[in-house]
């Protein structure tokens, strides 16, 4: 009984911490993005609200929350609101299976810094990822607007294509690790003294592209395409409802998928890897905190890379995106998969 209570309390604390951190970080990532974009474009970015605009996300949130709630005539109110929930919940749920660091002991209790270590973690991630398509399709349909409909159809098409690609791309690391549990995948990489990116560069590149496509980042932001569709499926949303979609898509999803990329390819919380020899930790002085810092560092670097791409590249056309997915990336991942399946047993077992 006591064990159950302790477990319950720990889990609740974990949920609170993760939710707070994810939403708070998500909000502040908007500021980060604006600053990065601004400096790439030779501007200072937000400077007025707080020191170097540090309070800008709060001001933005306040502004969005106090805005009038508009609803398009002849739209479907239930679906319109359901789309929001469907967007936010799966995106946050993904964080349930992301391991932020190694197991540690606090007051004699062993704690894994992840919400739940299910043994099909990766499967869960992509199952939840596919849920995003519902929210977008619903948002487009319920808005009763042609722009929104076209935008949502585009996005749905992309997600369907890239779900297939991304699943095949992560198959490589899973075969190498021999497990679907996210925690174990990282542990395996540490045991084998090898980040899987060294064996799976193609899968990594494909994964990155698929991640951009799933989250609607440049060069795959066709569902937004402000020049063509204004803002695509969010065009009829207003106030904080409008603010939630980019928050979920551009920040929380990018964050979660970056974290998964780190877990699968970059060895999770492990420090810099020298293949087959071991790990090099320039941050050893942080002691037990070092793994967490490494994890956060890797995720933020990936996120920054995504931003960097976003503010450099133009965007593809929808048919070209689908074409790339089915004609280039899927065959590539197939080849990679077969290759891995043949090589992996020879090396590891």
């Amino acid at each position: 009984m006591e064990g159950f209570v302790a477990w319950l309390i720990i889990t609740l604390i974990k949920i609170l911490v993760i939710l707070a951190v994810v939403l708070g970080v998500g909000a502040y990532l908007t500021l980060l993005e604006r600053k990065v974009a601004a400096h790439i474009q030779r501007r200072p970015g937000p400077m007025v609200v707080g020191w170097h605009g540090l309070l800008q996300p709060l001001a933005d949130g306040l502004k969005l929350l106090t805005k009038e709630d508009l609803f398009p005539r002849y739209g479907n109110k239930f679906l319109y609101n359901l789309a929001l929930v469907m967007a936010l919940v799966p995106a946050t749920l993904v964080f349930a299976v992301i391991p932020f660091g190694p197991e540690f002991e606090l007051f004699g209790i062993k704690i894994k810094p992840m919400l739940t270590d299910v043994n099909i973690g990766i499967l869960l991630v992509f199952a939840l990822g596919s849920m995003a398509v519902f929210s977008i399709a619903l948002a487009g349909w319920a808005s009763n607007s042609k722009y929104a409909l076209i935008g949502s159809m585009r996005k749905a098409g992309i997600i369907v294509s890239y779900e297939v690609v991304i699943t095949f791309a992560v198959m490589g690391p899973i075969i190498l690790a021999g497990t679907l549990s996210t925690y174990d995948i990282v542990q395996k990489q540490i045991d084998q003294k090898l980040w899987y990116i060294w064996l799976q560069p193609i899968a990594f590149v494909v994964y990155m592209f698929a991640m951009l496509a799933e989250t609607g980042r440049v060069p795959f932001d066709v569902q937004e395409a402000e020049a063509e569709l204004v803002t695509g499926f969010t065009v009829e949303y207003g106030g904080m409802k409008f603010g939630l979609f980019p928050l979920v898509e551009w920040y929380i999803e990018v964050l979660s998928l970056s974290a998964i990329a780190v877990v699968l390819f970059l060895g999770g919380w492990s420090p810099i890897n020298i293949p087959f020899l071991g790990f090099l930790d320039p941050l050893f002085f942080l002691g037990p905190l070092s793994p967490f810092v490494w994890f956060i560092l890797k995720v933020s670097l990936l996120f920054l890379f995504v931003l960097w791409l976003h503010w450099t590249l133009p965007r593809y056309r929808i048919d070209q995106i689908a074409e790339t997915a089915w004609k280039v990336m899927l065959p590539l991942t197939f080849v990679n998969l077969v290759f891995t399946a043949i090589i992996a047993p020879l090396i590891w077992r």
Partner: protein
Amino acid sequence: MPWAKGEEFLDLKERFKGLEIEEKATITILRIDKSQLIDLLKALKEEKGFKLFIDHSVVDFPDKKPRFEAFYILYKVDEKKRIVVKTWTDGELPSIEKLWFAGKWAERECYDMFGIRYEGHENLVRAFMWETYQHYPLRKDFPLEGYATEYLPSLNEVLWGDNLQGLMNYDRMHTYVPTLEDLEITEKKRLKKKAQIVLNWGPLHPGTHGTMWFLFDLEGERVYQCDVILGQLHRGVEKLAENEMYNQFLVYTDRMDYLSALCSNQAWVVAVERLLGIEDLVPEKAKYIRTMMSELQRINSHLLWLGTYALDLGALTIFLYTFKEREKLMDIIEGITGARLTISYTRIGGVRMDLPEGALEVIRAFIKRFPKELEEWERILSRNRIWLRRNIGVGVISKEDVYFYGLTGPVARGSGVPYDLRKFEPYDAYGWVEFDIPVGENGDVYDRYLVRLEEMRQSLRIIEQCLNALEKMKKAPFFAESPDPKKLKLSLDGIGLKVPEGEIYSSGENPRGELGFYIYSKGGIKPYRVKIRPGSMYNLCIYPKLMKDRVIADAVTVLASLDPVVGEIDR
């Protein structure tokens, strides 16, 4: 000389009874009866090689019978010759839609503005005004003061009960305003709907670069048919021209193609100078200054095009980079002329002011650095695989299409037609400087992109030569001085600028195509009729054809590559 000689058409005289050939210094005219008009135009197009359609409109003479004089301006690109065909009509004309598609749009405009009916026109709807508008604005009997029974919707001040007097008396505006029903009727009158979904793209849409109203008949994302409704920015510039003095109209040329005001200024001023016959009196320095300034403006305009074009294709950062350079150009233009957008710098007979101190140094510093920036943008875009895939093979315009649709400017050059008025009919200092005309090969969007980038480089060359020339003549006069001040008083404000009777078509190379002015003068200080040939409008008329069977994502690509400015289309 840009005008064809009269003797070239003597053989046509046998076939067309009643063909009169009129040759003047400023124009060559073929006069023909209405019944033979189409045959003559066909002969000119197919036998004589006058393939490029430039313009068509009507001049209204209320006292004469028949009342309207229609003119068609054609161009022969191989031999750089221009010809005007004229005919008289009382309200009906045969349509030239089969000969030149561009004529269709010009006819629509004439129908709108003069009430001329065209036989054989596929879909004769009003070009700028709404369908239920009863009047023909460019007819001479159109009441300028408005209609006493109509009122503008009230201003806030009227609603509050403010006592509006003197300068603030807005009560006297009597004009028609379209209602929503009117707009609906206008929309219904367009081509027959061909697909299930009709997407209203515009009039207020970030991708249309202004207030254009496109209607896409969609099948999925594919565009089955595209139609354009113009007129959201129609301000009646041609009517204004008839009621302003020659020099005052300069102000309105700023507001047509507002992104290249200096080039428009220059085109207008050169046209009037040619009509006055004082082109040679304008001092060399003024010519160099004008040339240099309008090339700066060309770079400025192309920078805005590049920025918004990249923005449309999702490359958001290029927009800010080009605006950084554009801001510098704006600084230069502001420092020299005093304004950033609506510049009004040139004057008939020269320029408004001499170059200020430091102008040459600043421009030199700018053109020294600029190629580097240009190269950087090219490294981001030109060879980027996404950029290539979005651009190559999209919106292909063939050489024949250029003539058929009356395309000019970079759009024509992108398709391999080296039609550049700066070379073909050099005005101001363009005859004295060296530069190349960039031409594309395939005529797709990517070629137009490359052509415009190369044009910026060529502009830099021109500017550098102008700078070298200007440095040598720091003290030279910048304004024409007439040898006989009483005969031709060219004062700074232009009061008393008397223009002789006559007519002229003169054009300048704007960044977005040929900007031509057909001026019909009956003497006096105001023109009788000014027809503006807007490059953007004729460039836009190929858009529905290019959009056929393409997806919406290409709509922005193609539109941005045509680079229309609504202020010039609608006037």
